[in-house]
C-alpha cells in the first residue's frame, strides 16, 4: 500500500483519529478481526435511553483499519442503537471517500465491531433483566 492509494480523508483520520481510547465502564464492547491477519479492533460504547452517548476504539492494523475505526465512532456517536445497527461497511468506506479495493474486506471491520458492541450491550441488558436488577 502506498500513501497515494488512500483518499485524503483516510489519511486524515489515520493521522488524527477521533475518539481513540477505552471506556473503562463501557455498556457494550465489541472486538472483531484477528491479529494474525493483521487487523483487530475493539469498540466501546456508553448507552443512555437507547442512544450511543459515548464511543471509543482501539485498533491494531493498517492505516485503513485505524481510519475506518475512527470514522465509525463519528458516524455512530449520538445515534440510537437501531440507527447505529444500520450503518454498513459501505457507509464507512463511502464516508472516507472510498478505500483501495484490496482493503475493502480485510480492513473494513469497523461496522462489524460497532454491531458487536451493540449486541454485547443487548446481551448484558437481557441478563440484567433476568437477574431482576
Amino acid at each position, binding site marked *: *500500500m502506498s*500513501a497515494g492509494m*488512500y483518499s485524503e480523508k483516510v*489519511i486524515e483520520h*489515520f*493521522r488524527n*483519529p477521533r475518539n*481513540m481510547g477505552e471506556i473503562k465502564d463501557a455498556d457494550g464492547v465489541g*472486538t472483531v478481526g484477528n*491479529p*494474525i*491477519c*493483521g*487487523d*483487530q*479492533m*475493539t469498540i466501546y460504547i456508553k448507552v443512555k435511553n437507547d442512544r450511543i452517548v459515548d464511543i471509543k476504539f*482501539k*485498533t*491494531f*492494523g*493498517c*492505516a485503513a*483499519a*485505524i481510519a475506518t475505526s475512527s470514522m465509525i465512532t463519528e458516524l455512530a456517536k449520538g445515534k440510537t442503537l437501531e440507527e447505529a445497527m444500520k450503518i454498513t461497511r459501505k457507509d464507512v468506506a463511502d464516508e472516507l471517500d472510498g478505500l483501495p479495493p*484490496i482493503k475493502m474486506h*480485510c*480492513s473494513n471491520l469497523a461496522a462489524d465491531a460497532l454491531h458487536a458492541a451493540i449486541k454485547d450491550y443487548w446481551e448484558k441488558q437481557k441478563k440484567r433483566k433476568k437477574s431482576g436488577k
Partner: protein
Amino acid sequence: MIDLRRIYLDHAATTPVDREVLLEMLPYFTRFYGNASSLHSDGGVAHEALEKAREKVAEVINAEPDEIIFTSGGTESDNLAIKGIAYKNKDKIKGKGPHIITSSIEHPAVLETCKFLEKEGFKVKYLPVDRDGIVKLDILEKSITKNTFLISIMAANNEIGTIQPVEEIGKIAKDYDIIFHTDAVQTIGKMPMDVKKINVDMLSISGHKIYAPKGVGALYVKRGVTLQPILNGGGHERKLRSGTENIPGIVGLGKACELAKKRMSKDIQHIKNLRDKLIKGILENIEKSYLNGHPEKRLINNAHFRFTAIEGESLIMDLDEKGIAASTGSACSSKKLQPSHVLLAIGLTPVEAHGSLRLTLGRKNTKNEIDYVIETLPKVVNRLREISPLWKK
C-alpha cells in the same frame, strides 16, 4: 528541524541512479544510438560500449568478460539461470525427478521460478533456515540426491539482510559436481564477491540496486556451463539472451559496477557506521523492539526491526508523513495479504511479522538523517501503540 528533503531508507527496494552513471549513459540515447549488431561504425560504437561495460561488470565479481550475459534485471537473470540449466538437464535425468535445492527465503524471482518448474515435473527442496536466516548446511548436504543438478541460494537476503555462507555452499556443490547459482542482487558493492573464490557457476546481478537504472542486469555464467535460452530470437549475448541490447542501461550498469568496486571500502565504512548507530539507537530508545536477522552476518546497509503490538503498514504510512521512506514485511502492505515468507521462515509468528520494519541505507544517507530517524521512530511507534489494543505496558 529537518528540511523537507526526504530521508530515503529503502535502498534494498531500489537506489537512485548515480550522477556519474547517468552522465555516462546520456550520450547513448541520442548520439551513440546505434544497434550493437550493425556493421556500420554507429553500430561499432555501440558494440564497443557494450564490451567495455561487460569488462566492468566482470571485474566487480572477478569473472571474465565473456562470462557476463546482460539481461533486463535480477528477475530475468534468476529465471535464465534456473530455467536455463533446468531445461538443459531435463532430458538427462528424464523420469527420475531432476532435483533442485534452494532455500525457503529466496526472492520470489527464484522461488516462483522453482514452483513453476515443479509443475513441469522437477523436484525442489526448499531448505529451512535458522532463526537468524542462515541456511542449514547439514540439511543442504543431506538433501542432495543423485538427481540434484542445481543448488540456488542467495548471497544475502533482501529483507533481513542475512549473508549466506556461499563459499561453503560452493565447496559442497563442487564436491558433488552440482551447478551452484547465487542471487547476488543485494550484495554487489556491499561486500567483496569473487566468483572464483566462491566457486559459483552462475550469479545474478541487478542494476537498480547498485545505483544503475531499473530494467538492466546481468548473469554471470561460468565458462563451460551451458544453458538453454528462455528468449529466442536473433542470438544476442552468445545466443543466451536474444534482443537488441539496452546499450544505455548496460553502459549504466557497467559504470555502476566500476563505482561499486572503486568505492566499496569507503561505502562499507560510511554505511555500516550509520547502520550500527541506527540499530543501537532504535533498540535503546524503543522498548520491546528487536532486531531480525543475524547480528553480524548481515548486509552493511540493512537494519530490520520488529516492534510488539503494532502493524507495519501503518508504521510505514506514519514514517512517510515524517519524510522517511521505509518498508515492512506485514501482510497489510503486500498484494497477497500474507506476511513475508522470509519472516515466517525465521520462525516469527504472523503477529510478530506484521510489526516488522526494514530500513536499508545507501551512499547518500547522513548522520543527521539517522539522528532524525532515531528521534522520530520512537514517537511514531508510541503513537501506534497507544491506538493498539494489543499494547500492554
